[in-house]
């Protein structure tokens, strides 16, 4: 282990970010309106950027600091703005139809977080940047993001679930493999942006042609 000068401060800050990120993920489960969910996603992405920044400063890696700036530009500003433009097109105050209601969702979220922490310990993953007690956070984001996607029957919410799942992978990448070449991080970020553009086009088509935002009603194709 390379004892960095601000070892304790960095670990404490990383732990705080991890806990706050997990809370945003639970807040996502609690948000009923789509524009609330967008705001929660933006906050979570800001935390992701702060985390990359922290690791970049600690390790003295300029590429991670650039990645943090790009994260802010794309995930905190561009993607939420883009989705909000979509929302003016559909009913923004529209409550997302829930297959599983909020209290039950939160309970499931907490259970999934528990599973994530347990499995992170079981894997014994060597977290380079996350202190041991919070290693499970990226896995929790992946599991809860996936659960959010399958339990929220709204096209925009499903995109947000996917993006939040990607945030989990982003955290995992930075904490497990901070040396992974910059180009990889950039490609992933770029890919998220491209995907959102395409999803947005598709979502718009679905809303315009089928007059619905809920995928509950999309049930022609079975078996």
């Amino acid at each position, binding site marked *: 282990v390379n004892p960095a000068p601000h070892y304790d401060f960095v670990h404490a800050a990383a732990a705080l970010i991890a806990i706050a990120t997990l809370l945003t993920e639970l807040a996502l489960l609690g948000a009923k309106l789509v524009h609330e969910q967008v705001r929660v996603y933006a906050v979570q992405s800001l935390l992701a950027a702060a985390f990359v920044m922290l690791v970049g400063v600690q390790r003295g890696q300029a590429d991670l600091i650039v990645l943090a700036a790009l994260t802010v530009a794309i995930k905190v500003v561009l993607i939420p703005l883009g989705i909000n433009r979509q929302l003016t097109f559909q009913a923004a105050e529209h409550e997302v139809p829930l297959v599983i209601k909020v209290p039950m969702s939160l309970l499931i979220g907490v259970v999934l977080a528990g599973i994530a922490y347990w499995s992170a310990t079981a*894997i*014994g*993953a*060597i977290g*380079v940047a996350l202190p041991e007690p919070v290693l499970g956070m990226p896995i929790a984001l*992946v599991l809860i993001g*996936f659960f959010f*996607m399958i339990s929220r029957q709204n*096209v925009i919410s*499903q995109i947000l679930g*996917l993006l939040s*799942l*990607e945030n*989990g*992978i982003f955290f*995992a*990448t930075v904490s*497990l*493999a*901070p*040396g*992974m*070449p910059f*180009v*990889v991080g950039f*490609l*992933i970020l770029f*890919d998220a942006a*491209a*995907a959102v553009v*395409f*999803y947005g*086009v*598709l*979502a718009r*088509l*679905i809303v315009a*042609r*089928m007059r619905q935002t809920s*995928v509950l009603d*999309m049930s*022609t*194709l079975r*078996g």
Partner: protein
Amino acid sequence: MGAAAVVIVALPLLAALISWVAGDRPVAGWASLAAGIGSLAASLVAVFAQNAAAGVRALGGVVYLDGLGGVFLLAVAFVYAVVAVYSVGYLRPGIGHVRLRHLYWPLLNLFGFALVATPLVDNLAALWVVIELTTIVSAVLVTAEGNDASLEAAWKYIVIGSAGLAVGLLGIVLLYAAGAPALGGSYDPTYTNLAGAASSLTPTLTRVAFALIVVGFGTKVGLVPMHAWLPDAHSESPSPVSAMLSGGLLAAALYAVLRLGAITVGAVGPTYVRTLLLAFGALSLVLAGLFTLRQSNYKRLLAYSSIEHMGIVSLGIGIGGPIAAYGAFLHVLVHAAGKTLAFFGAGELLSRYETRSADHVRGVMQATPFTGVMVLVAAIAVAGMPPFGIFRSELTIVTGGFTRPQYVFAALLIVMANIAFVGIYRTFHRMVLSTDRRDDDTARVTRSPQPLMAAAMLTSLAVLVVLGLWIPAPLNELLHSAAGVIGART
């Protein structure tokens, strides 16, 4: 090798650009056709004339081609070429229903680019990016018929596919982390680097990584239970796109699983990789085989058949040993030929009868003998009857299963192949040969076969017949070398 690789990937990109500029003009189609055939020719040169079986690296470590990549490159380049030829005919007025014409050609070429780039890249991250690119472009192609069902199918596809690929990416990140103790915290994740350090990868992390990779990329392969998107996307897209998805996309995703599997084999031995592939392969084979019995939509039927065939390839690799692995790689090639032929035939049926329901298609042989023969031959070939290539590859896998011995899985393959035969042949037999037609079962559009569509079908058929009867020596060597890459030499 470097020059050939550049041609393989540059032609589709160039065609995408030309067709984007050309818009609705015929030059878009012809440029794509030329790119497809040129890319296939360059692939044949790269694989055979430059001895890919030995493993070739080019362009400063950007490109890597070995036996494993060679097999999949041939499959996807073939599919791209015949689909481009077929599409020129299919997009003629009054034949196929394609509404987004100005987008069709640029996206088809980008799709082709991503497919042929997949077996060429020499980097884990680049591999993930090209596979993700296939999702984005093909999802838009799925909507090309422009109706509500196709939008629903595309949405399902993009959501499930992206979630799967996100899981696959986590697997790649973990694999990278597994290499860090041996290769240092910041290394270039090329196959060479990882394969060279395979014996010192962290075993636990590698195992978890590969499990995530099988589930993640397996979603795009269509392995059960991650297959939910596949029947809808295959059924609702225009038939040439269905052919591209079935013969090309599934193979490209399977290539990613096997490429990363080869690294995992080096780290933790072959048993772990084989067990996972056996489990998912057997499950896919059984469930998809049973589903073929209850499909009344003939394109969905073919889609379930694709899941079944991907299950067969996984099973063949999972059984292990040189014979079964050889059969599995041969199966990748013949499935590409068989499924393009079958979906091309389905496109003919759809354009003539304007329904996907097998119950409303009767007397194809009387109405249009050429289409009737093609569709029926495709059904027989895809269902695994001799003298076609799929019979040969399945027989090889079964033989491999008995020599291992893996009796249970060999027997399972025999039983399920027969069940799928009943499901597929019964439906197509009724559509093509029975003449008990009701008034609404007659072809709505009568026309003679479109020459380019016919040429594409005859090409696929020729490959199916030739590979069923004779394996050329260089291909034989390539298939053996592919088996060697995933640790099935003994």
